[in-house]
């Protein structure tokens, strides 16, 4: 039981981590809680659905339930969602920034944008759940008492790969370093000649791209519906804050911990309350160590 909960926790955690990375950089660089971020996951999932509707998910490759076509759809969705995120910023948030709007105003605007984004999906696709593939999967027994679907293992591996790639970008490229610099201190970054708007744009695009992958992965295990991003909102924020805003390793570790907490809690309380776990974790972190695991105080 415990082993299964841990395995499930890691797999859920991988998806949360991908979404939390975008949240952590938005919090650090743009300094407001972007309630619309979770809708980028939903959009990513549904954009991929469009491509799967045309090209199909592909014949099952090996033990997986899909072929390379789904991955291609995910990549296309990632690109388009990144652009969409940039678009949302240009339409709404950049205008507010130009006027010197307070962070809380940005949060209100994010509320409104999230409502529009989520319900546009309902408008087009309705409330019913959708599936990328109808293929049934046989769970693999990793070791006694722990069964996982091959899709889940693949997703965890892919999430890891994406994270490693991003980490490389952030630590080895000058643009990536500029982003980390801005996440720590916008004033000092500007003194170095880094333009705030350029980094903000990049942050939105990266956030949208990662969120799209998270949305597709969530939609794959096992289904896609318009609330898929919104249901993860608290988990994403809990993970980002737990890890310490502005930290990639923090967001990843935070995501895994939130996933583990949610699944381990199932051993103790009724599944109906699972949604309250990230909130409890968030409260604990905000009281005990508000800067998060990898964050700096003050």
């Amino acid at each position: 039981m415990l082993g299964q909960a841990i395995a499930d926790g890691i797999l859920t955690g991988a998806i949360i981590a991908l979404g939390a990375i975008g949240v952590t950089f938005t919090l650090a660089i743009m300094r407001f809680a972007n309630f619309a971020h979770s809708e980028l996951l939903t959009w990513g999932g549904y954009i991929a659905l469009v491509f799967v509707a045309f090209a199909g998910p592909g014949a099952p490759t090996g033990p997986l339930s899909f072929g390379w076509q789904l991955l291609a759809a995910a990549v296309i969705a990632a690109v388009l969602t990144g652009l969409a995120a940039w678009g949302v910023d240009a339409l709404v948030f950049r205008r507010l920034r130009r006027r010197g709007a307070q962070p809380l105003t940005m949060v209100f605007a994010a509320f409104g944008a999230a409502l529009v984004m989520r319900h546009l999906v309902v408008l087009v696709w309705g409330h019913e759940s959708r599936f990328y593939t109808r293929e049934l999967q046989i769970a693999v027994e990793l070791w006694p008492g722990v069964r996982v679907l091959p899709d889940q293992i693949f997703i965890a591996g892919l999430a890891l790969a994406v994270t490693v790639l991003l980490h490389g970008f952030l630590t080895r490229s000058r643009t990536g370093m500029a982003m980390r610099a801005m996440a720590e201190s916008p004033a000092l970054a500007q003194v170095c000649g880094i333009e705030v708007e350029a980094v903000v744009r990049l942050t939105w695009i990266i956030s949208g791209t990662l969120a799209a992958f998270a949305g597709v992965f969530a939609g794959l295990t096992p289904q896609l519906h318009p609330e898929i991003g919104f249901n993860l909102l608290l988990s994403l924020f809990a993970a980002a804050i737990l890890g310490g805003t502005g930290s990639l390793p923090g967001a990843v570790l935070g995501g895994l911990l939130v996933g583990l907490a949610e699944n381990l809690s199932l051993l103790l309380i009724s599944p109906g309350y699972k949604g309250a776990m990230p909130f409890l974790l968030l409260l604990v972190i905000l009281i005990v160590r508000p800067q998060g695991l990898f964050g700096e105080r003050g």
Partner: protein
Amino acid sequence: MSHLEVSDLVAGYVRGLPVVHGVSLGVARREIVTLVGPNGAGKSTVLKAIAGLVWREGGRVRLDGRDLTALPAHEAVTSGIGFVPQTGNVFTTLTVHENLTVGAHVIRGALHDRLERAYALFAPLAARRAARARTLSGGERQMLGIARALMTEPSVLMLDEPTAGLAPRVVEDVFRRLRGLAESGIAVLMVEQNAKAALRASDRGYVLAEGCNRAAGSARELLEDPSVAEAFLGGRRITRC
């Protein structure tokens, strides 16, 4: 004419509430100029206004004749201004090497030579190039802050309280390095609370109080002038100089 020329600068943190009410100063290449004055005089604000980090509501900033007043903060550095703020002058979550690389953000192309020059000038940093800036000592951080600002080879280097919290021996070292930098052609402008020590290491100085010029002259004149002490103790509240 000075290399950096500031005329009648009005600036503050909140628009409509200036802290600096019309300050003028100039710095030539190869000289060290220090701004001194009591707390709240607006000295740091003057530097931040030149760098474009606070609201500038009046006056002009000219560098080598070019008007910089309307430039946004991130473009000041391409014009040749290097700024070492008082707090938060290094990126603590980045390594020494990354700090220097980010410092050269506006420089296209290979940084290898510049980096090597920085490490040659600041030997202690070379030994710790892979260390996170958070782990450096106060003196090393100050050195990194200066080295970071020098990566773009600025013609003006501004420092806000470069010796704050440093041991006397390290303070000497900092002033010595600044003299070396000035001699290599840079115009150095600094704000210092440690007025006597800073003036002794400078060529000229300005005394500011309550956002206005109070006195100016060669460093020696200021050190020997009794009314300078008085300006430090002045207590009138004013809104225009």
